[in-house]
């Protein structure tokens, strides 16, 4: 009797929906890594669980990867970075993963200023579990779990990051490849913790914040903005609606956590 176990063939990669904003993000990641000349053997892609969190499996060139638990990418990335700070540690995950289940870790990663870069694919919805509200879903957003619409205020991760003096705080949009790549590159070039929020349409479950919705609203931050100016940065972070600023909101010159540890001065922990 045939047991239906071999369904490997059906397991096509990437497993995202056609038209999903994750595709251009993936492309930008691939190109940014190339442009930055990052040796993939010295790169670890870390993520949690969700649609966005599958990105590490789909990059064009092989790399090291650690796909951990839902919401727990940041602590895993922290453990990796502290064990071998010569590695580039890049977290790519979803808004539910990083701002919901993983909210506490994000907050405390910022306090530490661990030298990890985080790209959050912010589609304002839980994709993989089929469309429940995420912490960034707007008020009134209706789903099967929120039939009367979301009643909580969306979280403001950028404002939170600025308040915690995060080294690098930026937002970009999956619909603007060049902008995305510039932001990704700038994040990678940061010494401490970098948070890059990427607005990403989810064609299957977010019928409100569509490609067009974002496209009509995103507005690159002008050159006159000084990312060292916290007040100005916060003003940007509170701008959401008819206009959504994209670009570098805030930068801070804090030393990375790992640079402060004497025990890591000579060589990475893994070689001790």
């Amino acid at each position, binding site marked *: *009797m045939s*047991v239906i176990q071999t369904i490997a063939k*059906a*397991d096509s990669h990437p497993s995202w929906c056609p038209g999903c904003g994750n595709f251009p993000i993936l492309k930008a990641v691939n190109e940014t890594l190339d442009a930055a000349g990052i040796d993939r053997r010295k790169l670890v892609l870390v993520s949690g669980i969700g649609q966005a969190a599958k990105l590490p499996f789909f990059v064009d060139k092989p790399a090291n990867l650690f796909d951990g638990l839902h919401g727990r990418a940041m602590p895993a990335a922290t453990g990796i970075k502290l064990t071998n700070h010569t590695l580039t540690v890049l977290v790519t995950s979803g808004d539910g993963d990083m701002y919901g289940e993983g909210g506490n870790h994000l907050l405390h990663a910022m306090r530490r200023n661990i030298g990890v870069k985080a790209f959050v694919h912010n589609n304002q919805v839980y994709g993989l579990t*089929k469309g*429940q509200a995420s912490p960034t879903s707007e008020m009134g957003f209706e789903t099967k779990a929120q039939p009367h619409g979301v009643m909580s205020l969306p979280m403001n991760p950028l404002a939170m990051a600025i308040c915690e003096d995060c080294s690098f705080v930026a937002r970009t949009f999956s619909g603007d490849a060049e902008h995305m790549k510039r932001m990704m590159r700038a994040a990678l070039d940061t010494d401490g913790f970098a948070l890059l929020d990427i607005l990403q349409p989810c064609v299957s479950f977010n019928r409100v914040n569509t490609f067009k919705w974002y496209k009509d609203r995103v507005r690159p931050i002008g050159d006159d903005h000084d990312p060292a100016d916290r007040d100005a940065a916060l003003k940007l972070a509170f701008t959401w609606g008819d206009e959504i600023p994209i670009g570098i909101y805030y930068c801070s010159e804090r030393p990375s956590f790992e640079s402060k540890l004497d025990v890591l001065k000579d060589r990475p922990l893994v070689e001790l």
Partner: protein
Amino acid sequence: MDVNIRIAGEAGQGLLTTGDLLVGAFSSMGLHTFASKSYMSRIRGGLNWFDIRIADSELFAPRERADLLVALSEPAIEILSQTLTDDAMVLVDGEEAQEAAPPEAMAVDLTAAAKDAGGKPMMANTVAAGIVFALLGYDADSLDAYVRKQFARMGEELAGQNAACARKGAELAGDRAGRIQAPRPADAPAFVTDGASAAGLSAAVAGVKFATAYPMTPSTATFQYLAKVADKYGIVVEQAEDEIAAINMGCGATYAGAPAMTTTSGGGFALMTEGLSLAGILELPVVILLAQRPGPATGLPTRTAQQDFRFAQFAGHGEFPRAIYAPGTQKQTYELVRKALADAHQAQTPTIVLTDQFLQDAQKNIEPLGDEPDPIDRHIATDAGADYRRYAVTKSGVSPRAIPGGEAFVRCDSDEHTEEGIISEDLAGHLAQQDKRMRKADVLAETVLEPELYPADAADAETLLVCWGSTYGPCREAVDVLREQGGSAAMLHIAQLVPLPAEPIARHLKNRMRVVCVEGNCTGQLAAWLSESGLIGECETVLRYDGLCFTAEYILERID
């Protein structure tokens, strides 16, 4: 006499629409129906299938081979055509699928047909249903009637278009109509439910007023069912920021007096174990629906398993009593969610209901489940006064339960506490409280559910298949086959695992020639628990842990 129809294709192709339509239509005709789902962890693409079995007598499980494959994608053909019975029929849609299909397959452009019939492209599903109906030799009128009723609330026009598409399908079957020998409609009920909805309905009817969860497959369907009926039953349904919040909100809600439930799967349950222990010491009737899927960790998110029983049994630090239920059918899910709530309130301690992806998703037509509110007894002491002691030491271990807001001050503390609920490091007091809490295991034992022997009169069957949870159906069907073949076999289904109904189990195990534990895990968790309880020694097992549900065939192959 039964037929198994397998509708397969990619996620997003509308398999569920076709499937649900057929299940509803078959059931409305009085056929016995059993449908189950197999899907991948993705929103589009991949290979999913929906199995619908129909028969003229009651069904309890899926079966492995299909008599009719409706294939909407190439992999659906390639992979699943190896899973058919010898003279199965294949219906394919789409060019790609057509190329891969065997020559004798019936190829249709369903979307074109829908348009042909004056319908919309998405009505291709209705066309497919029409064809299936015809292949089975069923009258197009029944489908027409069902479709009209089903789509009525969308307006007459749409309903009419759908009916036309159904008829178009029948037409397309042409001389293949009736090619598959199908069961005759019997008098099966029209009410269809899956395990997830049965659990949700039971909770709503039993008076759950506070439901909170963090989404996790395959538990989400129950949570969303509750969200759907929240207004009707007056329930606060809130998505928590994480599973820790969910269980702690549940603790708060039950403290304040509302029956509360949270739904989750293994990973989320892991995060709840500290809160479970909290419910243990605070003596709160928190109920967890733990819908299992294969682990460890993220594992196979959309597959089925029975791996978390022993984890649930010992979850939470320290020692406190709990009850664990493992329903075998949709109906029993309805019964046991209620029992879990009732027992939790009676003994004032947390209880856990174990389901799994297979049971959550499996649909069957059964006698309608009651949907009128019929709240369980919350066992609230309304006469508690100013001298109230929340943790009064009593003989049964159960203390009078007051809720805050009345005359009595209700104090509870996660540290060890006095009878008044005040933190205390007095060790004699600790012993009194610990003993009191543990005595409640006897309260739970008093109402423990008896295991079911099938057939009920098979007291002297030589071979006994022992199982729990959703393995009920497959085991039961395996027993039927064995007995038909002249074997002396029976099934013992244990739907309450903790406390274990040891005495009846011992009785049923006595003098068996052969005892086989059938479980969806790789360590034999029930077998170990029976051994720990002194009920069996080393024991034969049939284990399945590939992520798919049991079937009678799977079991039979392994016990010969």
